[in-house]
């Protein structure tokens, strides 16, 4: 296995551990601000992080923690930001939902559903005008495609030949409701083809395959061809809530706040033992012992960083 491959595996494990540490702080009541963890999203995040080049720009949602961690590569400035300290990434002035990092290409993060799609059209246009040799990428969840801005953005990207990636992280939930409980299905492939926009579906949580696909799409974007990429994810951290009224318990999907049933462990970092968990998928590339050893090294790195 070459060093690039090891790096990607390392980054997935690091991202999981970093988020777990944030979760522990959250469970301990350390934060005043709302934070939306992205446990389970590590594969696409790491793939995008390795895909991004200097002139690329990415626009995020309120669930930007994993992207900010991955792009920065350090935990402490993010933790400090969440604690609203002046040593935070944005000196404690942005908190979580609007956290950006211009030096690392995170040009905008919005807490409003679908808001960042529109802004991405302008970022992409500016790349064309200046010009910049980079790709604009904008993230959204499957709930955000219900917003009118999603349609308007696809229309404008195509009409103005703006080669952006519109990346939809589809976890099949919108806050507390399953998508199929609140609306008719939307076939993104058919929707995007009606605008003559290229559609790609990614699933399986394999960061290597994701990265390979993204690299193939770069030239399209630079040639002014927009692409819609639907990534199937599972946002991990759900739990069963039992109350006197519901003694058998009710399934609660993770949306925001601490994930009460996710426990900090050295190993395994698994939350689910199937392909819904990107850590599980890493077994394809490195055996259990190798992953465990790497995880311990990462834990030491993080502990050292946090101690300093």
């Amino acid at each position: 296995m070459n060093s690039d491959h090891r790096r990607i595996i390392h980054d997935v494990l690091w991202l999981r551990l970093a988020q777990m540490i944030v979760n522990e702080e959250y469970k301990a009541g350390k934060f005043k601000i709302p934070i939306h963890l992205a446990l389970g999203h590590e594969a696409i995040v790491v793939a995008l992080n390795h895909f991004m080049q200097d002139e690329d720009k990415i626009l995020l949602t309120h669930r930007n923690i994993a992207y900010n961690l991955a792009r920065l590569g350090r935990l402490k400035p993010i933790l400090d930001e969440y604690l609203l300290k002046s040593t935070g990434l944005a000196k404690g002035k942005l908190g979580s939902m609007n956290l950006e990092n211009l030096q690392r290409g995170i040009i905008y993060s919005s807490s409003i559903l679908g808001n960042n799609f529109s802004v991405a059209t302008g970022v992409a246009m500016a790349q064309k005008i200046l010009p910049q040799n980079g790709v604009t990428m904008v993230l959204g969840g499957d709930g955000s495609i219900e917003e009118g801005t999603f349609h308007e953005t696809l229309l404008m990207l195509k009409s103005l030949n703006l080669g952006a990636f519109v990346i939809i992280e589809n976890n099949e939930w919108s806050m507390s409701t399953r998508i199929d409980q609140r609306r008719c299905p939307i076939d993104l492939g058919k929707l995007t083809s009606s605008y003559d926009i290229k559609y790609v579906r990614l699933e399986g949580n394999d960061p290597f395959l994701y990265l390979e696909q993204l690299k193939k799409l770069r030239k399209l974007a630079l040639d002014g061809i927009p692409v819609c990429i639907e990534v199937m994810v599972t946002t991990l951290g759900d739990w069963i809530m039992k109350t006197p009224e519901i003694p058998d318990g009710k399934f609660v999907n993770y949306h925001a706040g601490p994930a009460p049933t996710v426990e900090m462990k050295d190993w395994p970092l698994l939350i689910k033992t199937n392909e819904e968990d990107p850590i599980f998928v890493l077994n394809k590339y490195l055996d259990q012992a190798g992953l465990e050893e790497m995880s311990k090294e990462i834990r030491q790195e993080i502990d050292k960083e946090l101690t300093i």
Partner: protein
Amino acid sequence: MKYLEFVNSLLKNEVAKQDKLVVFGQNISAGSCLGGLTRGLSVRNNSKIINSTNSENTLCGFGFGMMINGVSSIFFMKQLDFLLLGIDHLVNTYNIIRNAKQDNSSSFTIMPIIVDNGYQGPQSSFNNLPDMCSIARIPGFAITTKWEIEKIISSELISPGFRIITVSQRLFKEELLSPEKLYYSNDKNTVFQYSSGHDATIICFNFSFPQGWLLHQELSKNNINTSIFNVISATPTEWNRIIESVQNTRKLVIIDDSKSNNLACDALVTDICGTCDLKKKIILKRQLSDGWLNPTSDIMELDMKHIMNELTN
């Protein structure tokens, strides 16, 4: 020269000078070109004019997106009420950008037309730029006179940051109002003074300056000399000069032609009542009847004789 002609000429001039500028909006270079507002605009080779899609929300985001990535733009809009579709960006996107304090020198200006020319029905019900601006403390300018148009277009149309500049459709075909002298304008270009008199102070808001100027002239004919001001922005603003004038004349006439419940003049009335010992206070607002949403002439008429009597009694 007509108001529209003057505005258009200055716009053409400013837009033609800029590098890497994007000018966009629905039909801005097709058909009537927004009733003539954007007719003849031309840009340099590295700039762009876009006849956009009907996507007002995303078009607002488009302008902000360009701004944060280093490109200036102007969004010309046929009617102010179209901007309601983009309120998310006026509030959330603008606040996110301001809070992040990104260091860039790019500009985003939205230039909607206020549909106040009459007989338009419900779509002319929203004529209050200050109301729109107040929701996120957005710099905004409702330009009426030659002085205001020159000053605002030259200094604000393309300048770092975001603002809204509106014009009045009702004035398009009218002769450009050109008071002989500009006595004063504040540092923010939000308050303009066009005469200095000791008998009364007239203060106009939104697009009521034509009525105020007519009143000023009528009063002058009857030897009542007034100071007249035009407040062209959202309020409150820096208006110490106005308050000094009212303290001197002690007779106040406020004219606000807006149809909203929140009026720009209300903040000034509060400030004045707290600091001035008034002999006369005349506040002229729209009197909206049951049919205010019907297609009507939409002109705010003033009873000049009544006002004169009030001021002289």
